[in-house]
C-alpha cells in the first residue's frame, strides 16, 4: 500500500524553537508539497518541490523553509516557531504534475501547537 508518512501526529513546541516536520513517501513520486490547514481558511500551500534539491514558494512561505535532499523526503522547517504557526500541517506527493491528470496522496497530518 503506497504511503506518505509524516513523522509526528502531534507536536508541541515553544516559541522561538526551530522545528522540523518530516515527510517521506515510498511511491517514487516526483513532486512533494506542504500545506497548512486552519479552520475557515482551508488548505494553503506553503512550499512545493518538483525534483530533488528544487523548491518553489507557495502562497504562504513566510516563516518557513524546506529541504529536499532525497527524492523520497521533504522536510518543512520553522526557523523560529511562533504561536501563529499553530496549525495542522499536511504533506502530499504526486507522481507527476497535477495538470497531467495526477492526484495527490496525503499524509495523516501533523498537528503542531506552539506555546
Amino acid at each position, binding site marked *: 500500500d503506497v504511503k*506518505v508518512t509524516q513523522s509526528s501526529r502531534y507536536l508541541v513546541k515553544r516559541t522561538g524553537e526551530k522545528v522540523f516536520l518530516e515527510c517521506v513517501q515510498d511511491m517514487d513520486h516526483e513532486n512533494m*508539497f506542504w*500545506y497548512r490547514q486552519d479552520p*475557515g*481558511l*482551508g*488548505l494553503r*500551500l506553503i512550499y*512545493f518541490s518538483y525534483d530533488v534539491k528544487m523548491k518553489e514558494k*507557495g*502562497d504562504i512561505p513566510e516563516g518557513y523553509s524546506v529541504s529536499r535532499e532525497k527524492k523520497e523526503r521533504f522536510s518543512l522547517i520553522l526557523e523560529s516557531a511562533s504561536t501563529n504557526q499553530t496549525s*495542522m500541517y*499536511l504533506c*502530499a506527493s504526486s507522481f507527476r*504534475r*497535477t*495538470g*497531467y*491528470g495526477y*492526484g*495527490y*496522496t*496525503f*499524509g*495523516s*497530518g501533523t*498537528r503542531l501547537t506552539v506555546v
Partner: protein
Amino acid sequence: SQQGEEDPQALSIQEGENATMNCSYKTSINNLQWYRQNSGRGLVHLILIRSNEREKHSGRLRVTLDTSKKSSSLLITASRAADTASYFCARAMGYSTLTFGKGTMLLVSP
C-alpha cells in the same frame, strides 16, 4: 489565488439519502479533483474529472463538470454514516499545483 467556493459549507442528511456538494471556480482549469477528509486526518483522493469531460462515476460517487458555468458537483448516492467527512474540491490550473477550496462538512446520521 483564485480558490473558488464550495457550497454548502455544511450538510446534514439521513442514511440512505443522496448528498450533493457544489464547487465553483473563477479561472480555466486542466482538471478538477475531489478529496475526502475524515476528522483530524489527511485528505484522500476520490475522483478526478478533466476539463473535456462532463460526467464521471466511481462507485456511489458521481461528478459533473460544467466549464461554461465554471462549476462542478459531487453526488454521493445512498449515503452511509461512514461518509461523514469534509469534502474538498481542488482545481488544477495549468500544470501547477492544486488549489483547494474550504470544503463542505457532511454529516450522515443513522
